[in-house]
C-alpha cells in the first residue's frame, strides 16, 4: 500500500536528496514531518512514472459481485476452524500423557482456554460471518466446534485427575461426626 504522503515525497525528494548533501540543516515548516519518508524513498523518487500510471490504487469493484462463493468459503473456514483443530488436539492429548507436569498442564490450559476465549468473542465472529448467507448454520457449527474443544479439554482434565469428581476430593471437608454419648470408666482402681 502506498503511503498517503508519497505523492508529495516524490516531488520533494530531488530537492531533499541534494539538499541533505549540500546543507548542514534545513527547516521546512510546511512539510517537516515528511522529511524522513522522503529520505527513505529517495531511491524511488528518481523514477519517472510512465503516462497513465497512477500511484493511487484503483479499487477493484468486480470482487463483490463476482465471487460470492469465495466469501462463503471463507466463512465456512472460520466456522469449521475449531472442529479442524480437534484431531490435532487429540493427538497432542495422546502425546502429552496423563502425568501431572508442567507441559501437559500447559497443553490442557491452552486447550481449555482457546474455546472459552472463542465462545466469549462469539459476537465478533458473528460479525465476521455477517456477509454469509448461511450465517446461522455457520455460527452453530462454530459453537459446536468450540464446545467440543472445551469438552475435550474437560475430558483431558478428568483423565489427568484434575476434576473433583471422586469422593476423596471432598474428604477434607467432612467434619468429624458429633458424639452422642459420653462414656468413660476403666479398670476398677
Amino acid at each position, binding site marked *: 500500500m502506498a503511503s498517503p504522503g508519497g505523492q508529495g515525497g516524490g516531488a520533494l525528494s530531488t530537492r531533499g536528496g541534494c539538499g541533505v548533501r549540500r546543507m548542514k540543516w534545513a527547516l521546512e515548516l510546511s512539510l517537516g514531518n515528511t522529511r524522513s519518508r522522503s529520505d527513505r524513498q529517495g531511491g524511488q523518487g528518481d523514477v519517472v512514472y510512465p503516462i497513465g500510471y497512477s500511484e493511487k490504487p484503483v479499487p477493484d469493484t468486480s470482487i463483490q459481485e463476482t465471487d460470492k462463493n469465495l466469501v462463503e468459503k471463507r466463512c465456512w473456514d472460520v466456522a469449521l476452524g475449531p472442529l479442524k483443530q480437534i484431531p490435532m488436539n487429540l493427538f497432542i492429548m495422546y502425546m502429552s500423557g496423563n502425568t501431572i507436569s508442567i507441559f501437559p498442564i500447559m497443553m490442557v490450559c491452552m486447550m481449555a482456554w482457546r474455546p472459552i476465549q472463542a465462545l466469549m468473542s462469539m459476537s465478533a465472529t458473528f460479525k465476521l460471518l455477517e456477509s454469509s448467507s448461511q450465517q446461522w448454520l455457520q455460527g452453530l457449527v462454530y459453537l459446536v466446534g468450540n464446545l467440543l474443544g472445551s469438552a475435550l479439554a474437560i475430558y483431558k482434565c478428568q483423565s489427568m485427575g484434575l476434576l473433583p469428581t471422586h469422593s476423596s476430593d471432598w*474428604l477434607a471437608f467432612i467434619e468429624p461426626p458429633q458424639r452422642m454419648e459420653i462414656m468413660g470408666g*476403666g479398670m476398677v482402681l
Partner: protein
Amino acid sequence: MTDLFVDRLVICRRQQYVGKVRFAHFDMHVQSSKKVLVATEKNVFASLNTRTGEVYWRHVDKTGPEGNIDALLMHGQDAVLVVGNGRLLRSWDINIGGLNWEIVLDSGSFQSACFVGQQDSVKYVAVLKKSAVSLHYLSNGHQKWVENLPESETVQYQAVYSGGNGEVYTLGVVPHSHITIVAYSVEDGEIIKQISVDAPWLSNIQASCAVVGQGMLICADPATVSLYMLDLNVQSQMTQIPLQSLGLEVSPGFQPTVVSTQPNPARPPHSEFFVQLGPDHYQLLQLNNGQIVALRDFKPAMLVSFATTGEKTVAAVMAPKNKTGLYKSGRRLLDTTLIFNMDPNGGKPEKLYVQAFLKKDDSVGYRVMVQTEDHTLTFIQQPGRVMWTREEALSDVVTMEMVDLPLTGTQAELEGEFGKKADGLLSMVLKRLSSQLILLQAWIAHLWKLFYDARKPRSQVKNDVTIENLSRDEFNLQKMMVMVTASGKLFGIDSKTGTILWRHYLDNIPSNAAFKLMVQRTTAHFPHPPQCTLLIKDKDTGLATLHVFNPIFGRKSHITPPALPQPILQSLLLPLMDQDYAKVLLLVDDQYKVSAFPSTKNVLQQLQEMASSIFFYLVDSSQGRLSGYRLRTDLSTEMIWEVIIPTEVQRIVSVKGKRPNEHVHSQGRVMGDRSVLYKYLNPNLLAVVTESTDLHQERSFVGILLIDGVTGRIIHEAVQRKARGPVHLVHSENWVVYEYWSTKSRRNEFSVLELYEGMELYNSTVFSSLDRPHPPQVLQQSYIFPSSISTLEATLTEKGITSRHLLVGLPSGAILSLPKMFLDPRRPEIVSEQSREENLIPYSPEMPIRTEWFINYNQTVSRVRGIYTAPSGLESTCLVVAYGLDIYQTRVYPSKQFDVLKDDYDYMLISSVLFALFFATMISKRLAEVKLLNRAWR
C-alpha cells in the same frame, strides 16, 4: 528463629535419678574427694558429685529381687556389693565406676557381710549366709575359705563381725533361748571357739545388738529396760545393766536400739555408742573398762550418725529446732551446730549421713546429707547452706499430665477485661485505656530487655525460669509437667528447662495407693485458676481421697473436695462444665452410686438433662467381668450390659479406650482409585487385652477384644495363639497396635488392627453407638520386631493432621519413633499400580529398627515405664516425656516441621532479593518511560 535454634539445643533434656537411697558412703580415701556412693532400692549403684549433686556414674541392675542390693561396704577405692540376696559379690572401683571383679556366691539366703582386716590392712570380705560363712580376698574376690555353720538348722546366724585380731565372729541366735557365737580363724577357717550364752529375751541380733569397743556385744532389751553386755573374747555370761542405773528411761513400748561405729575394719569399734531410747531421744554412752558411762543426753534428737576422718571420729545429732521444720545438726565432740531450713511439707528426715573432713588447721569440718521421707536427698554445708537437693521420688513417676502455662500478666489483663461484667460506658473506656497502657508499658519493657540482652554475649543471658515469670510461649511449646510419684510427692516441672518449679508432699499416702490425675480446668478460663484433681485410692480399704490443686503453682485449692465415705471404684471426667468452667468429675462408689464433683445446682441440673447419654464401664479383672452402666437422672445407675470372661481360662490384663483429647482430621483413607475407605471412628470403642492363665508355650494365647463401651457389643475379637504377654497396646483413631511374645517362633511380634466403615459413611453428622447397624471391616497384619519393648505410646498433635508415629521404649533405654505407616494392614504383598498410588510400602515381615529413628540419640532413658505425649500449639510438633528411672523430655515432628521455617532460612538473602527486584522494577519502569518519551520525540 534463632530462638528456635537455641531451643533445639536444649529441648532434649534428660534427668537421671537413682531412687530411694538404701546405703550411702562418702568416699574417704582421698581428702578432697567429691563423691558419695549410693546404693538404692531401685537396684542402682551410683556415684554422686557432692558439689553439684550430679551423677558421676551409675549402674542400673536388674529390677526385682534379682538385682536387689543387700549390702554395700566401702574401703579405700573399693566398694563391695552383695547383690540378689547373696547371689553375687561385686567389687567396683569408685573412681571410674568400673567393675573390679564379680563372683557368684554359693546359694543360701544372705544375712550379713563385713570387712576383715589384719595388722591395719583390710584384705578380706566375710559373707554370712544362712548356713555358711565364706571369706573372700578383697583384691580379686577369690574365695579363701568357706565353712558350714554349726547347728544352722536351729540357730539363726544374723551378724558377722571382725575386730582385726585374726578372728571372724559369727553371731547367731535361737530366738528366746540363747546366743551362739562362733569364732573362726581368718587364716584357714578353723573354728577357734564356740560360745553359747543364754538370752531368752533376744529374738533379733541385728535389730537390737551392736559390737562396741574391744569386742563387747551390747544388746538392748525392752522388756527389762536394760542393756546386756557380753565379751566375745571370753566365755562368760551376759551382764545385765539396767538403764535406770545409768539414769536413763525408755519411752514406753519403744524398742531401744544400739548404734556403734567401726571406722576401720582392721581395728575394733569405738567404745562410744548411741542408744535410742525413744522416737526422738538418743543417749551417747561410753564403754570404759567394762563400765558403761553416760556421756550426753540428746532430746529431742531425730537422727544420729557417726563420721570419721583420719583418726578423728565425730558424732552427729540431728534435732528439730522448733515445730516449723527447722532442723539443726550439732555434734558433741566439736559441739558446733549447723542450722538449716527444711521444706516444711517435705516429710520427716529418715537418714543422716555425715561427711567429716580435716580442715587445714587440723580441725574437723563436716557436711551432711539428709534423706527425708519423700525420698529427697539434701546436702548441706556449713553454715547451713543447702548445696543441692535431689528429688529421688521422681525415679518413680506413676502418672503425669501436661498443663498449658497461663498467659502473661498483660495478656491476662486483657482477657480479664472481657471476663468482668460491664459497669457503665465511662469505666469501660477507662479500663480499656488503662489495659492498653499496661500493654504498651510491657511492650516497651520487652523491647528494652531485648536491647539490653542483645549487647551481652549469649552465654551470659540467663533464662531463669521461676513461677513468677512463667508464661505461655508463642507456640505453646513450653508446658507445665505435673508428675505424681509413688511416694505421694507431686511435682511441677517446667518442660523446657526441666526445673522443678513446685513440689508438694502428700503425707499419709498408703504404700499401695492407686492414683488418677485429672485436669478439671485448664488455663484457658482466666480469671478462674486452673485446677487439677488427684484421686488417691487405698487399694486395701478401697477408700479414696481427692486432692485438688492448682497445677501451675502447686498450691492446694481452697475448694474443699467432697468427703468420700464409700469405697470408690472409678472416676469419670465429663466434658460438661459448671458455671466456673470446671469439668465435672463423677465418682462411682461400690454401690454403683455416682457423686459429682463439683456438685453445684447448675451441675446437677446439667447432669439431669444429660443423664440419658452418660454411660460408664467398669472392668473387674479379678472376676473377669466387664460391665456397662447408664446414669439415671437421680444419679443412681443401671447396668445395661455385662461380659464375663472366664477367669479360669484367661484374665483381663488391660483395657484401653481412646484419649479424649485426640482429634482425627481425616475421616477416611484415599484408595488408589481415588475412592474413600471411611474409618470406623467409634469414640466409645474399648480394646481389652486378655492373657491365658495356662502359660504352657503350646497352649498360651493372647486375646484382643474390641468392645463398644456403650452397648457392650463385641465389635471384633482376635486371638494370637502360642503367644504370651506382656502385651503393650496402643489404641487410637481407628487402629489398635499391640505387641506380644510369640512362643512358637520365640520372637516379639507387632500386630495392627484397623477398622473401616467401608466405602460409604453410615451417618456423617453424628456418631451414636446405639445406632450402628453395620459391623466395621477389620484388617489385621503382623510383623516381627527385633527387640522386646518396655512401653508403647502414639504421638498426638493438635488437629490430627500430622501423620502418627509410635513411640516405643526399648529396654536398652532408647526411644524409637516408629512411623505408623510401617504398621498398616493394607501393606500389599504384591505391589500393584493402586498400592503404589496410595504410597503403601510393600509388606515385609520384619520391622526394621533404624538407628536414626531413636529420638533420644545417646541419652538413654533407663527402665522406661511410661511415655506421655501432648500436643503443642504447632500442628507439626508433639511433646514427649518418657519416664522411668530417668525423665526425658523432647519434641517430635512426625511429618517434619512443615509449619515452621527452617533454621537456615535465609531471611537476608530473600528479603534483599525482594528489595532488589522491587527497585529494579521501579528503575526499569522509569527507564522505559524515558525511552518511550524519547522515541515519541523522534
